[in-house]
């Protein structure tokens, strides 16, 4: 009649579950209250805020009821405050519960009671996990349901938003479950609560931190590497503690939204699997756990070694980065490795002393620490030595099917875009998508790009840290920020990014400027439909005269065709060394195609560079050209600026052939007299400084040295030209395009009665010697 047989494991499980839950009801209540304050209450405050201070647009509100509310997350169930606090709460509570519910393992006397009880250790672990899940999940689910009800009542029924809300809630719960399981697993493996807490935190943050640091290192030291946005997001998927907070930053319509969301959803699923696997592992380890390790510092076994390795790697790399940033040494790589070794060893020693509660085992364990530091340095060295051929890898032409590149030539500042309706959401919104790249499929164009790539990797100029010193003084750099993605025949891709290169490398891309493959994708005139053009503008090169023209669709079609013909007819030689002065700039504004388009633009421009061009003839026939012919006699003066060192190009489009854009506005004040005074005052100061230096320095100072000193101190040299002859010379020297490897000056023509116009470019070599002299520091300080 013993009750033993009727006292099944199931009954024992449920009774123990109730007993443990009852004991933790206080914590449950406290957590529920805290979560209420920072989750549904914040939502209610935001949802019922007064919109009195907003300039409400009824149409906007009708299209998007959430438009005037600051909700985060795809489920629109978080506010700014709740995003921060729920993140903290949902990370902290599972760790706290994990520490509390498993604390009996870390007390000898508690272990005596729990481990002598007639309940299997796996069951005990499961009961604790169930209690933790109950405590965490119940308030979260109840509050989310409350928010969902409020959302439907206040904003309406949006299935996709509610779906995301459910998915996100599931994600938060899965991540909390995994955090709890990691804590429980660590608790099983170690002997004290302190070790459990430290080890758990290290393990939870290790993956994103190490991957992030490695990406930073690759970004800094690996020539051609750049972490893209997707990769940066993916790092957060590696840990349950960062996965869900990262999702709060998602919003529909962003470029990489679909990819990131897909990976994030997969990660939630993976987290669930990982959580279950870790639980099984924890249960197995717990079964074999020695109760006697309770209250003992955890210094043996694989786990502390893993923690120490993580600590050594992270601290070593961080030390290297910190001292790299403060720039304590000229030799970047050597200095980085030296500080990595110091930081890694220091971290190892500190951890060894903490884990073993003293210095007794330090000397004996130093070889292991040295090994960990060597491994850290080895990982860094992989990057420093070119990432196992990463830096020099360029696919052969036979293996390339196409190349995607963000180089869009001299008209690259006209951003092409794709527009709906093929990209739209359920609510009927239309999205535009910026097309940042062009695709090259013709072999000769691919080869042109390969030659550029080979030249850049051969020189390795301009890597942010490691190779900056390698740029010779006489080499001019440009910063095109080029990203090349090779699509290979085997379906794989290879991407390289270069923020800078020298002008000679840049010039290797010049042949692309005349290639239809580039023009058709990069220049708006080639893909803009005439019916979408709203208006045309014609201005002279100096911006002194501008005319707005409204043409019929037929005329717009003719003009577009004329531009296409003119652009297609230009040879590389004509572009590199234009014989004629440009006549004016023709630009248009366009509306987005209503029917949608895979490539369109809201505007474009064309520089009319010859009287032989079809565009010129069209505008001439319309009588526009005569209207925009500048009257140089009305020029008050010209401000000319020449770069003191490398001839850096202003503007947004950086190409092998540079041309001025009408979008690029003046960089001087409209007040000519002020400009003139300040420039003249500056020239006087430069001369005075040079004279003083000559008098105070005892040894002889060469003019060249003083010029270099002045240039490095004062920067670009500016001069004002008011002589009519000089003005005409300068006006005639203006060109439409200038090769990247040619020195140029910028000139701003100030006309009477007009504001400052567009700056124009003049090849330095085309200026008469007298003017060149006035733009030379050597001559000024003589």
């Amino acid at each position, binding site marked *: 009649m013993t009750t033993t047989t009727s006292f099944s494991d199931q009954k024992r499980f449920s009774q123990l579950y109730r007993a443990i839950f009852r004991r933790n009801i206080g914590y449950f209540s406290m957590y529920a209250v805290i979560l209420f304050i920072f989750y549904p209450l914040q939502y209610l405050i935001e949802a019922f805020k007064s919109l009195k201070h907003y300039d409400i647009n009824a149409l906007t509100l009708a299209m998007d009821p959430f438009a005037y509310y600051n909700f985060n997350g795809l489920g629109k169930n978080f506010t700014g405050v709740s995003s921060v606090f729920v993140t903290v709460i949902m990370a902290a509570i599972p760790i706290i519960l994990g520490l509390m519910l498993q604390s009996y393992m870390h007390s000898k006397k508690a272990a005596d009671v729990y481990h*002598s009880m007639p309940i299997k250790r796996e069951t005990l672990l499961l009961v604790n996990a169930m209690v933790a899940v109950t405590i965490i999940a119940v308030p979260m689910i109840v509050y989310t349901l409350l928010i969902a009800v409020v959302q439907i009542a206040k904003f309406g029924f949006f299935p996709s938003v509610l779906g995301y809300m459910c998915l996100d809630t599931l994600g938060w719960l899965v991540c909390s479950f995994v955090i709890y399981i990691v804590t429980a697993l660590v608790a099983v493996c170690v002997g004290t609560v302190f070790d459990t807490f430290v080890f758990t935190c290290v393990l939870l943050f290790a993956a994103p931190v190490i991957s992030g640091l490695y990406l930073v290192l690759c970004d800094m030291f690996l020539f051609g590497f750049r972490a893209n946005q997707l990769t940066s997001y993916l790092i957060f998927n590696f840990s349950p503690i960062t996965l869900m907070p990262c999702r709060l930053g998602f919003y529909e319509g962003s470029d990489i939204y679909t990819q990131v969301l897909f990976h994030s959803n997969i990660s939630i699923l993976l987290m669930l699997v990982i959580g279950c696997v870790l639980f099984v592992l924890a249960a197995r380890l717990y079964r074999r756990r*020695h109760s006697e390790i309770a209250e003992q510092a955890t210094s043996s076994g694989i786990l502390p070694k893993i923690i120490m390795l993580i600590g050594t790697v992270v601290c070593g790399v961080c030390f290297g980065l910190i001292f790299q940033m403060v720039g304590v040494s000229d030799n970047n790589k050597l200095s980085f490795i030296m500080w990595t070794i110091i930081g890694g060893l220091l971290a190892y020693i500190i951890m060894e002393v903490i884990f073993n509660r003293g210095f007794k085992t330090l000397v004996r364990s130093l070889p292991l620490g040295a090994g960990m530091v060597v491994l850290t340095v080895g990982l860094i060295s992989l990057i420093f030595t070119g990432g196992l051929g990463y830096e020099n890898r360029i696919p052969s032409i036979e293996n390339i099917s196409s190349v995607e590149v963000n180089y869009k030539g001299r008209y690259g500042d006209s951003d092409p875009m794709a527009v709906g309706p093929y990209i739209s959401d359920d609510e009927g919104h239309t999205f535009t998508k910026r097309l940042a790249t062009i695709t090259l499929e013709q072999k000769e164009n691919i080869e042109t790009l390969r030659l550029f790539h080979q030249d850049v990797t051969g020189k390795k100029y301009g890597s942010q840290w490691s190779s900056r010193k390698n740029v010779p003084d006489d080499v001019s750099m440009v910063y095109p920020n080029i990203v090349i993605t090779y699509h290979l025949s085997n379906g794989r891709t290879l991407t390289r990014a270069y923020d800078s290169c020298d002008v000679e490398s840049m010039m290797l891309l010049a042949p692309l400027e005349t290639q239809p493959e580039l023009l058709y994708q990069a220049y708006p005139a080639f893909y803009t439909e005439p019916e979408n053009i709203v208006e045309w503008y014609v201005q002279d090169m100096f911006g002194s005269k501008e005319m707005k023209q409204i043409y019929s669709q037929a005329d717009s079609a003719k003009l577009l065709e004329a531009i296409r013909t003119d652009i297609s007819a230009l040879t590389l030689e004509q572009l590199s060394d234009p014989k004629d002065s440009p006549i004016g700039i023709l630009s248009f504004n366009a509306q987005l195609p209503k029917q949608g388009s895979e490539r369109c633009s809201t505007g474009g421009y064309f520089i009319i560079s010859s009287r032989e061009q079809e565009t010129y003839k069209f505008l001439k026939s319309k009588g526009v050209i005569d209207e925009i012919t500048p009257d140089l006699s009305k020029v008050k003066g010209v401000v000319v600026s020449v770069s003191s060192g490398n001839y850096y190009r202003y503007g947004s489009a950086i190409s092998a052939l540079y041309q001025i854009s009408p979008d690029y506005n003046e960089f001087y004040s409209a007040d000519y007299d002020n400009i003139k005074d300040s420039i003249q005052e500056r020239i006087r100061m430069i001369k005075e400084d040079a004279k003083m230096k000559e008098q105070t320095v005892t040894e002889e100072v060469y003019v060249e040295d003083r010029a270099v000193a002045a240039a490095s101190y004062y920067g670009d040299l500016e001069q004002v030209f008011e002589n009519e002859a000089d003005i005409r010379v300068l006006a005639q020297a203006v060109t439409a395009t200038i090769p990247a490897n040619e020195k140029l000056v910028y000139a701003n023509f100030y006309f009477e009665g007009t504001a400052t116009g567009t700056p124009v470019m003049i090849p330095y070599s085309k200026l008469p010697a007298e003017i060149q002299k006035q733009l030379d520091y050597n001559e000024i300080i003589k």
Partner: protein
Amino acid sequence: MIKATSLVKCFGDFTALSALTTEIHKGSIYGLVGSNGSGKSTFLRLIAGVYMPDGGTIEIDGQPVFENTQIKDKTFFVADDLYFLPQSNMNDMAKFYKSIYSTFSEEKYAKLCTIFPLDPRKKINTFSKGMKRQAAIIMGLASQPDLLLLDEAFDGLDPIIRGAVRKLLSDEIASRDMTVIITSHNLRELEDLCDHVGLLHKGEIMFEREIDELKLGFCKVHAAFNPMIPLEEFKKDLSIMQISATGSLINMVVRGISSEVSEYLLEKGALFAEGVPLTLEEVFIHEMEAVGYDYNNIIF
């Protein structure tokens, strides 16, 4: 029946139990004595299933103990360092054990609460050391185990309560055939309570006997000789653990029955010979001296 065969338990480099082999029969009160660090508590924890053996086996009724819920359901372990749930009172603890032990009896718990002078609604962390010990014993008895393991069970108990506990244990044994294994340094206590005793030293059972047999197996004898005969004479025929002579008076501790030893000495010409049985404490001290655990030789 509890059966330990070549039981080994190590803590790092230290071997607490080395090839311990013993059998403890059902219904007995087994006293486990031994020097500090001899492995008594470790042995109890192995029986309770708290520790996993590093070698050998420990079985109860033919089944291994570790992670065996059926066996552990019939076993209750009262450790030397007691643990109660944080902020709990005795009623909370009773509820907790009730959810774990199938044989836990609320009636018995209520009855025990009337015997011991404890307030079951008062938080246990306000109890004195002895009161906590009483609370633990109450839980142990209310769980009605077949095997009760008591580590330093009487530590902190006053003489009245000690008597009460002894009585309760005897009643449980008599009524339910419960087995009790008890460790204590208070050998006088064990002498009165136990029917068997085992001496642990350096992780091994040095000897184990029924308590009566143990007492009868050792004796302390005083004898007078005139003239005195060389002490070596006795060593040939008797298993002498300790011997000393003062004038014509000889004092010796001998393995054997006192009457037989006295008779032997009279045959050897003793003027008189008188033997008395040893107390358990004396047996313990002499046995320990025999293996070099002799504090009499310590010179300060």
